[in-house]
């Protein structure tokens, strides 16, 4: 087990900058999830920690030792690949044992370790099988087993659940959590799935296209206080409503684009007169009586999800006016195509329209 430091790391492929100055200190035993849209460089960052990609500039240290120029095998790490990368011609046992065999461990020691890992992952029955005789979930476990037997300082996961179906993904997510609790090995985990990120991470690193850090923080912190409009849009589904406009001088209402006035649950005199993006999450909008309503959207369409329904609408007369999404109870029905919605002050976010950064009220 070990801490991992990523210090001001850059990566370019020729002219293309893939990672631009990412720094993060990962504590011993921590589970860190790197999350971002496809092409944001999160996998590349993980592969740089693994030693599969060179580092253009900056340092990566494992357990206090800079590993920039070390071969992957000398970094004491283990990686689980998206497509599992199991050796198709070897049995489950041999797949897990291969790395140990190369390291020159005795046969008895190898068998002990493989059997222990197989027990943890409930693979004991399948040790003699080949990968193609296993289901997706079992293959995934073998890939994890191959990482576990090495007893590495750091686990690296590259979108390990993305090839599984939805149900299995939930199950494997739980198993991953249980596994981490049991082994407490420092873990770096890459995903584009925000649910995985929210449920698994101690802390998450949200990255945006071009390999930039958007926010580092615990899942709830990222959800409650998104540092940028990018994070606000990426974490949460559907994304946070962002309404552009200018606060009135007393800070009690937003003069939104399209000539709509949106009253705020409380006044923000210090921010009065500034142009802003007002952010409210769809799930924080609630239905209310006409007199209390802060938002009165015209409903465009409704998606029924069972327990909830997602209501999409716009405020104001024309289609260019601000759009709003709300997650409401399925029983809620719009009246004459209108909804009366309110929200509370704790759930209000402000962002700078130019930089996209959060403004603390």
């Amino acid at each position, binding site marked *: 087990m070990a801490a991992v430091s990523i210090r001001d790391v850059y990566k370019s492929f020729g002219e293309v900058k893939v990672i631009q100055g990412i720094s993060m200190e990962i504590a011993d035993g921590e589970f860190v999830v790197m999350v971002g849209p496809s092409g944001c460089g999160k996998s590349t960052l993980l592969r740089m920690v*693994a*030693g*599969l990609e060179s580092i253009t500039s900056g340092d990566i240290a494992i357990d206090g030792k800079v590993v920039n120029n070390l*071969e*992957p*095998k000398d970094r004491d*790490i*283990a*990686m689980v*690949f*998206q*497509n599992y*990368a*199991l*050796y*198709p*011609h070897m049995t489950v046992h041999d797949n897990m044992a*291969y*790395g140990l065999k*190369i*390291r020159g461990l005795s046969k008895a020691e190898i068998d002990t370790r493989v059997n222990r890992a197989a027990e943890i992952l409930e693979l004991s029955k399948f040790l003699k099988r080949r990968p*193609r005789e296993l289901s997706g979930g079992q293959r995934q476990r073998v890939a994890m087993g*191959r990482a576990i037997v090495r007893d590495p300082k750091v686990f690296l996961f590259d979108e390990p659940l993305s090839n599984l179906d939805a149900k299995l993904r939930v199950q494997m997510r739980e198993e991953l959590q249980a596994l981490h609790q049991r082994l407490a090995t420092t873990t770096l985990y890459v995903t584009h799935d925000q649910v995985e990120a929210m449920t698994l991470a101690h802390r998450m690193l949200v990255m945006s296209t071009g390999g930039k850090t958007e926010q580092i923080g615990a899942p709830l912190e990222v959800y409650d206080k998104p540092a940028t409009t990018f994070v606000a849009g990426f974490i949460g589904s559907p994304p946070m409503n962002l309404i552009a406009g200018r606060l009135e001088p007393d800070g009690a209402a937003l003069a939104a684009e399209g000539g709509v006035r949106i009253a705020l649950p409380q006044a923000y005199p210090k921010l009065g007169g500034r142009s802003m993006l007002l952010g409210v999450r769809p799930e924080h909008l609630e239905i209310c009586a006409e007199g209390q309503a802060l938002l009165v959207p015209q409903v465009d369409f409704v998606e029924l999800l069972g327990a909830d329904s997602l209501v999409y609408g716009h405020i104001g007369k024309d289609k260019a006016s601000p759009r709003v999404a709300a997650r409401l109870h399925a029983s809620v029905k719009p009246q004459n195509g209108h909804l009366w919605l309110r929200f509370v002050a704790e759930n209000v976010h402000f962002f700078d329209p130019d930089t996209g950064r959060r403004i603390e009220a």
Partner: protein
Amino acid sequence: MIEHRPGLNFFCHALLITAIVVILFPVWFTFVASTHTAERMREVPLPLWPGGELWQNVVAVLRHGVAGASTAPVGRMMVNSLIMALSIAIGKIIISIISAYAIVYFRFRLRMLFFWMIFITLMLPVEVRIFPTYKVVSELHMVDSYQGLVLPLIASATATFLFRQFFLTIPDSLMEAAWMDGAGPMRFFWDVVLPLSRTNIAALFVILFIYGWNQYLWPLLITTQESMYTVVIGIKRMIPGGDASVDWNLVMTTAMLAMLPPALVVILMQKWFVKGLIEQEK
């Protein structure tokens, strides 16, 4: 075919059976000829059913060759052919799998240039480069030697290309996983790439063995001593020109013997061969 009309069925079968008869008749006739005496083969009409002389004929050609023709015993020629075919097949596989591995997995300067140079040689069959090749081989004093028979034919652009295409289908992550496991390039080749290529190797072996066995022009040029003849040129030498009588029974026996090893290779390796051609182990 989805249709089940009796007329169509009948037509298809008739066509297939006719084609089989047309193809099999010469083989059958060769076999029949190898089971009769030389005298019977000079009488008209020629026999259409096997006689009882097969064993004597086989023993005669294997031990002594054909009397009157300037050839070594067929046994000797079979050995020559076997050595040449095996060396060509195995040599081609070893060389091409290693070159393909280098081209796919290593990033060296002028990599694509080398690949295209290999690829371009696909367009040059033995016949086109036969004179310069002969000159080189003879100046290296390899006329009438196994090296001379094998070496000029041992590099294979086709096999290199096929292995390259196969290696490209092996996911990169497999190499990375092996790298993380601590396997170097040689280890990865030996432990992962080679076992995965088994079926491809088997299929190529069948094709290349037959290619080597059936070589005609090159052995004809490069061998001058009877003891170095391969069986394929041996058959030709058994048929003297002019009015000399030909022991057709013995020539046909030799032809049967010459057909045997390729047929055996195909039959024994058929399962692997088909597997290698149609499926990739994933």
